[in-house]
């Protein structure tokens, strides 16, 4: 089975970076196992495969990573894919920003837009995905603003505590996967450029 990070970072068998990754074999295996646990789980439980794919596309879109987004969005029904694309277009921006507990760090507070889909988009996404996208926008771009009220909104939209853990893992894991792919791709390109 294809290793997703190798595939998207352009790391081929026998290449220099293939050898580098082989020196951290468990990290390589378990990063893939994390991907599988979140996007091809034995038991999807509360978060359907379609929802997992849609949320992955949204997180990758927020990062401006078109190729990784396309990989995760494969198989998504057209209507949902279009709704996610609209969510991305309406909520992309730089991160991280956000607030600290008031005190000496308040000087480092930085403002940015919180986001939630408007009524028309929320209807296309459905209540569960609309709430999940709003939450993942915070997780990706301003995680230090997180508060119990954010989790309450997810519970109100019908997610359980267990579902929220999975949604959080999806956003958090992808924040790792995207950066590993991008970092290793830059390192690979630097090796190919040098004699």
């Amino acid at each position: 089975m294809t290793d997703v990070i190798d595939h998207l970072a352009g790391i081929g068998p026998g290449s220099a970076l293939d050898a580098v990754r082989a020196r951290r074999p468990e990290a390589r295996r378990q990063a893939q196992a994390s991907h599988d646990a979140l996007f091809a789980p034995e038991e999807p439980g509360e978060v359907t495969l379609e929802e997992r794919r849609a949320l992955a596309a949204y997180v990758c879109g927020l990062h401006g990573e078109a190729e990784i987004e396309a990989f995760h969005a494969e198989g998504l029904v057209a209507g949902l894919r279009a709704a996610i694309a609209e969510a991305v277009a309406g909520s992309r921006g730089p991160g991280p920003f956000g607030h600290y507990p008031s005190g000496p760090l308040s000087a480092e507070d930085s403002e940015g837009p919180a986001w939630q889909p408007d009524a028309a988009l929320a209807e296309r996404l459905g209540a569960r995905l609309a709430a999940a996208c709003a939450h993942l926008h915070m997780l990706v771009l301003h995680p230090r603003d997180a508060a119990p009220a954010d989790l309450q909104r997810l519970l109100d939209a019908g997610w359980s505590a267990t579902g929220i853990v999975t949604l959080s893992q999806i956003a958090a894991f992808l924040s790792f996967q995207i950066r590993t792919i991008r970092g290793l791709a830059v390192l690979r390109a630097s090796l190919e450029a040098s004699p």
Partner: protein
Amino acid sequence: MTEPVLTPPPHAVPAAFTRAQLDWLPWLEPLAPEALTPRHMAALVDASRAGSPYFRLLARDPAALEARTRTDKDIFYNTDAGLPRAERELAAAATSRFNGCIYCASVHARFAATYSKRVEDVQRLLDEGVGAALGERWEAIVAASVALSATPVAFGPEHVARLRQVGLDDLAIADVIQSAAFFNWANRLMLSLGEPTE
């Protein structure tokens, strides 16, 4: 059935980055210790983690937790060459400082200080932030971690070149990338499922 969000008891909120030992209070109900099945225990990897509300909360998705934990351990604990442990911890602390995770920064600043013995430099990173003067090698590692953590990702060939210039080989550079990338995972869970307390 709708479970409510947990309201932590009154507690001292850390208002600055610190190397002090902090605790963490969950906003959602962790699994009860007596409810942990063999599958949950396997997902915790270390049985001692059954004492941690954070890991018992993540154990609600055991497959994701187990793979997360095993990824973490190899990135930070694999002793086969590459970046010294102190500097993997530096990348973790710098990423946490940049994202604003006071809890993660406290743990990994302690590790960075312990393994490097450069307590004052680590404290300067916490006090002044990711622009602190730390000497060329550490500054290169911090700058790479920060560029990788930005959204959109701002890590480029100039960061790789700077890491090479300060003496990192390919494996060490890959270790910086994986250490910083991993803390973009860890910070988001720690920040959004509960809060630190002194």
